[in-house]
Structure formats: C-alpha cells, structure tokens
C-alpha cells in the first residue's frame, strides 16, 4: 500500500526543511558585505541562473535602489512605518529605518540581464549567469 501524504502541506514542509538545511550554509560565506544584515535574503538556483528572494514588506518602490556591478548586487533603501499622530499605541513590532546591503555572488553575472520584481512585499532578483561563467560540455574525441 502506498502511503498518501496531505500534499501540498507535505510539499511545504519539504520546502521548509530544505530552507532550514541551508540556513547559514557557507555558499555566501564572507561574501555578503553590509551595514547590518537587513533585509534577509534567500538565494536559489533556477536552472543555470540565480534567483535571490528578499522579504521587504511595505516598501515604496521609489525608496528602493538596486545596483549591479560584475558579481555584486547592492540593495539599499528606506523602510518607513507611518503612525498617525494622537493615537494610543498597543503594540509596535514592525521595524523601520534605512538599509544598505551588498551581495557578492561566487558566480559572474550578466548585469544587463538582471531583472527585479517587487510584489506582495517580496523582492525577487533574477540574476542570470554570464555566458562566460556557464559550464561547457567538452566533446571527447
């Protein structure tokens, strides 16, 4: 008999375990330079290319700058949390302020092919590998 799992919850658990397993992996060791580690970044491989997913809820697109150079990406900006005047505050957990973080990837990027998408408070950076960095099949004669 085949054991059936309550997919897609099982799929989510597997994803969470995969993310957990890579927590503090050494893939980017000593390669992220920053003024503070905000915002948190997850880096994935998508085929030959790299996809960085950054949780940045409540950012105005105009307050977010992304710069690319060779194999580094710089994400900087400002996160504002507005609180109207004259209200009584019960809880304040959301953080606000300025951030500036640089990611140096251990692969060469194609800076012209980089795409950024901000949706539902999540910034996705599509980082295509430079043609020169892609592995090549060697034909054996």
């Amino acid at each position, binding site marked *: 008999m085949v054991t059936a799992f309550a997919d897609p*919850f099982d799929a989510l658990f597997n994803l969470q375990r995969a993310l957990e397993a890579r927590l503090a992996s050494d*893939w980017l060791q000593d390669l992220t330079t920053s003024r503070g580690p*905000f*915002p948190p970044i997850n880096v994935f491989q*998508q085929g030959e290319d790299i996809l960085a997913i950054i949780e940045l809820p409540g950012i105005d697109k105009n307050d977010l700058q992304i710069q690319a150079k060779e194999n580094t990406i710089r994400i900087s900006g400002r996160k504002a949390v507005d609180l109207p005047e004259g209200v009584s505050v019960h809880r304040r957990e959301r953080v606000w302020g300025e951030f500036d973080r640089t990611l140096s990837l251990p692969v060469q990027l194609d800076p012209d092919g980089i795409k950024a998408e901000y949706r539902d408070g999540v910034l996705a950076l599509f980082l295509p590998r430079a043609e020169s960095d892609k592995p090549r099949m060697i034909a054996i004669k």
Partner: protein
Amino acid sequence: MASKQELQVQQKRELEKKEETTIPARIFLPTVDIYETEEALRVILEIPGVEKNNVDVRVEDGVLYVDGRLDFSKYQNLQPLYTEYNVGHYSRSFRLSSKIDQSKIGAELRDGVLSLTLAKLEEAKPRTIQVK
C-alpha cells in the same frame, strides 16, 4: 537628531498554539503594529508573499483571527543555495479589548502589509461627560 536607524533583521517567531496542527509544516507569526484611535482599532500586519485571495480575517467571540496562506508553488524547481529566513503560512490571533462592530471591518493588503480597521461599537467609544 538621529534620523537614521539601523535596521536589524527580526527573527521570525513561530506560532505556538495550544492545539497542534495535524500537518508538520511551520506557521509563523506576522509582526504587528496595533494602535487605537477614537473610532477604531487599527491592526497592521506584515505578511510578505501572501496574495490578496489567500488572506482570511475574522472576529469570533471577541477574538480577531488573521490567517495568510503563502503560495509556495513559486518555489518549485528552485534549489536553495543560501538561506537566511524560512517561509510558511502566517497566523495570529488577538483577544480584542474593546467592542468591535463586526459589520465594519476594513481590510487592505498592499505590498505585503495588511491593514485592518476595526470600527468600535458606539457604546465602546469614549464619551465626554458635560458637567452641569
């Protein structure tokens, strides 16, 4: 005056419920700001990655429940290389201290920030008593 504040990463807190869920997946607590005006209670929650259709807000027996389901199908075919945070559904509930008009709950989701406006019932609003 120091106008710049360095942002620190907030570790995601996991939901601890009295009852366990039957599924092993993790659920996280969204960070929240709550404030009260004369007319309403405002609850602002950060649920990055959750789409409008996957948010469930309800008030039951004086408890506000907020659930956000993450569409993790986007993570299919992605191989994690380096991670700093985990992802999952969001859930949080609050026992409301003042009476809320259930028919007047406003909700708006923008850039991963869910803003709830819970209008207070007429009887719960502050009143100024005129001294004769």
